[in-house]
């Protein structure tokens, strides 16, 4: 009798939690318009394969993704590595899948970039310069550089650098250095490589000063409360789309080889970097000021 009741409850919950439409958030990894344009085909493919309507909503900042996730009642998001870790810790997000880059890696790392004409070769040369971060809630765009700077004896950014600000997106940070608005840019390699693909000359104008450890690339994480079937469907669609000609085409346009399964364990490096940066994920204030 109890078992029957339990089964009924599970079924009810499953049915209650079974969504036909999922609202997925997108972090401003790059230009928000390009970001939306990039993810739209993927969402259409998933909808076609699973029958679950996918609605993307772009978030203006990495920083308010946690708040926005709850405010906008999102069902999931394509998290960055740091925001993903935050979401796992603070939002009880279940990682589902992450993409494999064209080079076969499913991670990314951060770069600290300077203009080739800037004469900056090391941290010492960076003193009194302007730094363009991305967001405090990004690994490559803040956490890693802080960790790097800290390792190189820079504990107070305000005093060491002339100025620093948050561009909001990795491509904005890179463009800030290219346009002379900042001396140092902190961005992820995937965005850097994306920009280089669009404009090969760009690579000639930038110099990579530092490289962070690899962290999981931006992957899909869903609310754990979502129906098991939904999560399984999404997971299956993402993990098998490289076997489908249409899926392959979408992946190509998306700029990746395939999606692979992602678990909490995959965010371990993020936790390490955060720790080395002296950041506690549980109570980290990630709002930019």
């Amino acid at each position, binding site marked *: 009798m109890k078992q029957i009741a339990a089964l009924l409850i599970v079924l009810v919950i499953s049915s209650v939690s079974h969504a036909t439409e999922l609202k997925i958030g997108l972090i*401003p990894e790059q*230009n*928000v*318009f*390009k970001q*939306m*344009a990039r993810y739209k085909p993927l969402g259409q493919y998933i909808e076609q394969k699973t029958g679950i309507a996918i609605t993307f*909503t*772009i*978030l*203006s*900042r990495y*920083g308010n993704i946690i708040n926005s996730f709850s405010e906008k009642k999102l069902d999931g998001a394509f998290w960055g590595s740091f925001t993903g870790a935050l979401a796992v810790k603070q939002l009880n997000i279940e990682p589902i899948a992450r993409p494999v880059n064209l080079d076969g890696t499913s991670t990314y790392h951060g770069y600290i970039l300077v203009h080739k004409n800037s004469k900056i070769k090391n941290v010492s040369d960076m003193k009194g310069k302007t730094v363009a971060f991305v*967001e405090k809630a990004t690994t490559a765009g803040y956490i890693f550089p802080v960790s790097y700077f800290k390792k190189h004896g820079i504990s107070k950014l305000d005093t060491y650098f002339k100025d620093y*600000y*948050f*561009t*909001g*997106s990795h491509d*904005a940070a890179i*463009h800030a250095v290219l346009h002379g608005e900042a001396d140092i840019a902190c961005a992820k390699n995937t965005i850097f490589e994306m920009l280089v693909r669009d404009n090969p000359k760009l690579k000639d104008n930038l110099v990579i000063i530092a490289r962070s450890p690899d962290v999981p690339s931006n992957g899909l994480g869903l609310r754990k409360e979502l129906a098991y079937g939904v999560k399984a469907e999404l997971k299956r669609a993402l993990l098998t789309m490289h076997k489908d000609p249409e899926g392959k085409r979408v992946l190509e346009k998306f700029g990746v080889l395939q999606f692979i399964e992602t678990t909490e364990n995959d965010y371990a490096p993020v936790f390490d970097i955060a720790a080395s940066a002296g950041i506690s994920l549980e109570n980290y204030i990630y*709002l*930019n*000021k």
Partner: protein
Amino acid sequence: MKKRIIISLFALFIFLSAGTITAILYMASNASGLKNIIKLHEVEQLRRSLVISIQNVQSSLYTYNTPSASDLDFIVREAASLDKIAQKCSSCHHSPQLTERIENMQSLVIDYEDYLSYYLTASANPERTNKLKTEAAHVGQQLIVMAEAMSHSATRSLTELSEDAMARVNNVMTILLITVAITFILGVIVAIHLAKSVTRPISELVEATGKISSGEFGSTISFHDQTEFGELAEHFNKMSLTIKDGYEKIQQEVAEKIQTEHALRESEDKFRTFFEMSPVGIVIYPIALDPLNRTLTSSVYNTAFHNFFGYSREELRQMSVAEITHPTDLRKNIVFMEELLAGKRDSYTMEKRYIKKGGDIFWGLINVTLLKSSYGKPPQVMTTLVDITERKLIESEQLKIEKLESVGILAGGIAHDFNNILTTIVNNISLAKLSTNPDNNTVEILSNMDEACRRAKDLTNQLLTFSKGGTPVKKIISIKEQIRDSSLFALRGSNINCKFFIAHDLWPVEIDAGQIDQVLYNLLINAVQAMPGGGTIFISAKNTWSETHTNEKTQKDYVKITIEDQGAGIPEGNLKNIFDPYFTTKQGGSGLGLACTYSIIKNHGGNIAVYSEDGKGAVFSIYLPAVHDQFIASEQREARIVGGSGKVLLLEDEDSVGETISRMLTQIGYDVVLTKDGSDAVTLYKEALTTSEPFDSVIMDLTIRGGMGGKDTMQHLRNIDPHIAAIVSSGYFNDPIMANYQDYGFIGVLPKPYDIEELSLLLNRVMSQVRK
């Protein structure tokens, strides 16, 4: 007409096509303008949409991070539509200048997006974010200005193009209107002309066709021209006349056919009438193997044929020809039929006997003809049948008569000479009796001799009568006494009784008494001979008429004389032969008696019948035509000689006869001049006329051997003296001149042999008449 129509329509088509093509070309040239207009409209729409989108984004930009801020997704959507619109603008064909401007705009849009994104994603450093905001707004404003400028330019172009297009459209409308109007007018003209060209002949055709259908064949139309209608009219007229001719021919043929049918029907009716009413039997039957042995089931025969046989129609149908044919004639019939069927002959005729129902036989004359097949009908055989039984009887009787004639000719010759001899004997006996004392016994001897001569005379008369039946020398007498006298004479000396039943008012008859005597004598002698043991003969005479005993349709009166005996009767098989010459059942009989009797009665126009039953005697019935004319009393035979005076010319070639008659005449007081030749007689008579002593009378023998006979002599003498008193004499008392002496101018007749009494009486009468 076809050419006219084609040319007219072609001209119309050409004109219409020209106008239409011109309009189409104008429209085509205008189409690009219209397309441009449409494009411009579309572009204008795009640009308006672009401006609106930019304005929306600008608005969102200005209100971002304020309570009235739009949702980031809205901004993203508006920016995305911006991008799309910018792409659409470049998809149209523009002038290079415009294309460059559009490309600039597209570049500005990209920049706008970048600046927007920078601003939207930027955080902290308000100065920086404001700067980003200002830059984005500036770019947005540039976009708006650019879009509006492009819009104004497009509007101008649109107006120009629209006006130009409208002008072209107006031109096209004008061209179309003119084309339609002229085409209409031309069409009307062509239609009227064609209609007239078509309707007039057609109406005439319809009218003429109507007339023809109502029977006015030969109706023609007057329309003619060089077109097909003219040709049609010509052909129609020919057709109409042909139909008329044909109709008249058909009518004529129908009339002839009707006439023929009537004639045929009439002929058929006539044939049927003839067939059924024909007294000749006709039977038609199909050709088949052994047709004579096939029943008449498939045959057609008329009433006359059917009536011959006595069968019912159903019975006759079940008979075959062979069954109704006498066996004796069947073989010959079969041979003829086989030859007919084999094609050896087309027909045959034969006499054959048929067997009636009941076994009676009749003779038929048949003509069998092969009817050859016609009109698909199989060949048939037609037989006509005529009943010739009566003819056969007649032929049989004719044969009898011919037999009689042949015998008669012989007998006649003998009788003539014998009569002459008898005449001499009789006359000499008469002379001897005159010269002898009546009490002398010699007179009795002479009387017996005379009687014997008379009997001899009777016999010769019988022979002469038999020879040709003997033309009777008839006189009207009452036969009552003769019956009685002749009967008693014939029965004298016999043991037979005779009873008479003679009507007192018996009609007179015109007969040759001597011949009738013979008849009675012959019948009575036979009756006596039939009753050798004696018996009674019943003789009756009464008046009667033809219906009772002949098949004559008109009533004729007869005197019926019946002689009935009580003898053994005549066997049935002999009845039909008893009147045949030489037929006799009596041993030693001549077989001439009844033949002579039959001949005499027939010559008198009468009839003789016999009825007999075996063992019950025989009844002979004689029918003599009665006479109701002036009764001339028969001259009783007087046994006396009458003397007289006068000059008599005697023409006789037999010396003994001539001398005897001359002596007799002289003895009774006449002057006689004897001559042997008619020519001499004529000369003598003629010479005597010139004298004072002409001849008072002439007695001439009819037959003068080697010289002119009595007939010719009489002709000559009548020419000399029309009132000549002449007596004809002959041993051939069957000669027609003897029977009808008055027709030849004679006033008396003396059949030889005659005696002095007869001569004296006749001559006395003649002289008396002369002297009157």
